[in-house]
């Protein structure tokens, strides 16, 4: 069975187009769900749907284009990407545009650009390139090298400040190290170091509004009309959805606008209110399907670079989902992470699908890799 699929003479039309059909179907289903929820959350605004459709079409095109590039080329380009990304992050810090209290954008004249988005791909690429150069499992020296590669972009993005993205980027790098076989002893020591680092972050790196978010997360009822409002209203929306939900377009928390950021970061609350616990389970099945599919592609990849990259991209996708759902349902502090494929808008959609394009490239172009 597996052999026959690998047979070059029996490649399907999808494989010729470098499309992983199950993955594509999973992505499209989630996007479809997203459109329905956006329609409801956005107050039945067709304009929103149109704009989202354009964005999705663009992102899917990017995905398909990326899928056509051989993984070998990515491997070669990893360092370039990374270096360019770091330079742009530095540029943002020096001359970036300020928006919503954070310095995240580079004004390129014709468009505004968020270099941290590049790093979402460049960091796992770079890490996979660096680690895969050595025999696995990596030795301590290489692990330290990997950490150093990771620290720079993470801190640069955290400084903007964009805690959510820096968290995602850090985890994408850590996943590479973990999948590469970093020893448990090291993992343990890093965990201890990390917890020692937490107070340093609190006092020196985190901005007041970030601290406030953490405090609000710990006790949202302390400020029900101020910073706690989001999370309280979100939990009310989710909880009042109950087992089977209030029905599409019938979520009172969203329709009557009690819920903030309805069609963007808090869209999961809208979904939970209208489709209830059963809806959530089905949604999670869809996400799990994509994650499992991604991990299958990763394990099937023959080359260490591809394995690590595919694994990291897939697991980071899970972190996306988990962090968003966790923050909206109140078990994680509110960091600005959208629900992937479902939330309205964002350059992040393009980056995300470019990542899936890489996964597809890895999944469909194994034959072209040399050992």
């Amino acid at each position, binding site marked *: 069975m597996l052999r026959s699929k690998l047979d070059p003479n029996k490649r399907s039309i999808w494989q010729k187009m470098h499309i992983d059909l199950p993955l594509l179907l999973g992505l499209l289903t989630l996007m479809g769900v997203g459109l329905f929820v956006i329609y409801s959350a956005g107050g039945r605004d067709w304009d929103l749907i149109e704009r989202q459709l354009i964005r999705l079409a663009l992102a899917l095109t990017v995905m398909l284009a990326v899928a056509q590039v051989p993984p070998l080329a990515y491997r070669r380009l990893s360092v370039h990407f990374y270096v360019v990304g770091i330079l742009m992050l530095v540029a943002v810090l020096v001359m970036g545009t300020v928006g919503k209290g954070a310095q995240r954008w580079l004004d390129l004249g014709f468009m505004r650009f968020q270099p941290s988005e590049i790093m979402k791909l460049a960091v796992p690429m770079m890490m996979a390139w660096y680690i895969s150069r050595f*025999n*696995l*499992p990596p*030795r301590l020296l290489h692990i330290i090298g990997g950490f150093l590669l990771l620290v720079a972009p993470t801190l640069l993005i955290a400084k903007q400040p964009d805690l959510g993205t820096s968290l995602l980027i850090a985890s994408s790098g850590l*996943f590479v190290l*973990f*999948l*590469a*076989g970093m*020893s448990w002893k090291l993992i343990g020591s890093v965990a201890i170091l990390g917890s020692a680092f937490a107070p340093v972050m609190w006092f020196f790196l985190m901005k007041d509004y970030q601290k406030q978010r953490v405090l609000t997360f710990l006790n949202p009822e302390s400020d029900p009309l101020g910073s706690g409002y989001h999370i309280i*209203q979100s*939990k*009310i*929306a*989710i*909880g*009042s*959805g*109950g*087992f089977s939900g209030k029905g599409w377009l019938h979520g*009172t*928390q969203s329709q*009557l*606008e*009690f819920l903030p950021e309805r069609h963007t970061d808090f869209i999961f609350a809208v979904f*939970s209110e209208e489709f*209830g*616990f059963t809806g*959530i*389970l089905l949604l*999670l099945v869809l996400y*799990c399907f994509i*994650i*499992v599919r991604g*991990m299958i592609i*990763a*394990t099937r990849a*023959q080359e*260490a670079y591809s*394995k*690590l990259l595919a*694994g990291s991209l897939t*697991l980071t996708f*899970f972190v996306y989902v*988990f962090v968003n*759902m*966790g923050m909206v*349902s*109140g*078990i994680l502090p509110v960091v600005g992470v959208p629900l992937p494929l479902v939330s309205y808008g964002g350059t992040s959609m393009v980056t995300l699908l470019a990542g899936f394009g890489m996964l597809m490239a890895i999944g469909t172009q194994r034959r072209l890799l040399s*050992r």
Partner: protein
Amino acid sequence: MPPKRITIRDHSAEANLFARRTVITLLGIVGLLCVLISNLYYLQVTRFQDYQTRSNGNRIKVLPVAPNRGLIYDRNGELLAENRPSFTLEVVPEQVEDLNQTLSELAALLQISDEDLEDFRQELKSQRRFKPVALKSRLSHEEVALFSANQHKYPGVSVEARLTRYYPYGETLTHMLGYVAKINKKDLQKLVEAGQEDNYAATYNIGKQGVEKFHEDRLHGQVGYQEVEVNNQGRIIRTLEFQPPTPGEDIILNVDVKLQRVIQGLMQGYRGSVVVIDPNNGAVLALYSNPSYDPNLFVHGISSKDYRRLLQSPDRPLINRATQGQYPPASTVKPHLALLGLDEEVITPQTRMFDRGTYRLKNVERPWRDWKKWGHGWVDVTKSIEVSCDTFFYDLAYRLGIDSISEMMVKFGFGDYTGIDLYEESDGNMPSRGWKRAKHNQPWYIGDTISVGIGQSYWTTTPLQLAKSVTVLVNHGTRYVPQLMRGRYVDGEIQLNAPRELSPLVLKHPQNWDVVLDAMYGTVNREHGTARKAFKDTKYISAGKTGTAQVISIAEDEEYDAEKIAEHHRDNAMYIGYAPYDNPQIVVTVAMENAGGGSSQAAPIARKVMDYFFENQPVESYAAQ
């Protein structure tokens, strides 16, 4: 796993390692998903009820709906207090972005006075920010149209149509009806204490005076509720449920507003009051105090200028003279005293004395003077009442003593509240030894008793008290509480209140009633009667008693000269009367401040009241139920 130092990559070992790590991460994912799902299960299933309640609490607001205030009618169905739609410009401070800007624009658009703005700012301080505050009341239809056309520019500002009280008869009934006005902090506190806060949640005005205050509970009604769905801005999306309010009761008063208006006309130019009571049941047919004022001024909030004018007027229009004015009863209580003397057998109908114009006690230098300098000559009790001989009553009081007088007069209702359905009432004063000791820390002197004999000294009474005492006389002891409220409409049917009867005043010798009533007949109808001139040629037969009360005491050798005395020191003119003599239908009391003599000033007014009553109204309509 010990590190292997081999240069050739072991791809299968790497693949195995990767697969193991993949399985571990997948297990980790499952673990995290379990945390996520169990939390969602906790929110959506375990605590579903709780969050559903909170979700409904967000979107469902219960708005109180004010009941319509009950209407007030007179005994003939004339509307005395009605509700009229009135448009008020209201602002919800919370919903206005720039309050100052909005206010100045609105002031220009609708000509809002500085005083309105001042009031608004005052109000703003004491209100919660999400409650509407009135900016301008009584908008004209033009103003409503003008604002409506510009409403979109002013979020948080709206025109509310509300029913507000209107008193079509204006000042005619002010002291009886009272008025409603805005609920203030003190009212609110009382409502909270009475547990009525919720019932008034949507109510703006509350009875402040008179019947409006006394019968507030009947008139107000029961609040209703509207359950609405609102969005996060508080805007109403739709109504989910409506529980209509129960309107207040429509009540009927005993007053005859036409009679009241006649009295109002008669009293113009005087400070004083007239009370008309049906002795058969205590129904108050008229109760007027002059000068009066327009109660409608208070409904929408009286301007401080107008209020100051009322408050500082030397004529004190805010006082209800009929129930709060406290006057020496003077000679009007001579029948009461005579009755006591007869019943205590201190005198008999035949007892005679010679009046020389002064009364002296042994060892007392100072004589008590009769109003007639040369005296009335030989008088008995009947003639003493008819001609209002003072000397006879000095002597009678001396012989009765204050204890006996005080005890009996209290039974007539002197020195106590009448029990009328008004809160604005004074109790007057019926002096006694104990009272003087308590009040002035002085013993009771015999001289005090002698002045009490002509209704002076420390004795004060309200005109209503006096009227009540007359009903006791004409009823031969049956006592009724004067009542303003006659009944109410229940489902369109009139339901009359039962008269409030007190335990009767019982004499040892009941035939004595007729002796004093006959003397009151004589006052009006016999040759020397002090009220004979005033009641000449009436078509009905009435009885009565005049009174002229000294406002300041006059030295023994001085004579009273109205022209020389400052107006406010002139005598009060009093009259009590009833008619028809053989079948009393009305008791009338007139009290006029600083007007002069009772027979010359008060009696003619009482006569005109009776004339109107018996000529224009069929007697039957006033008969006992």
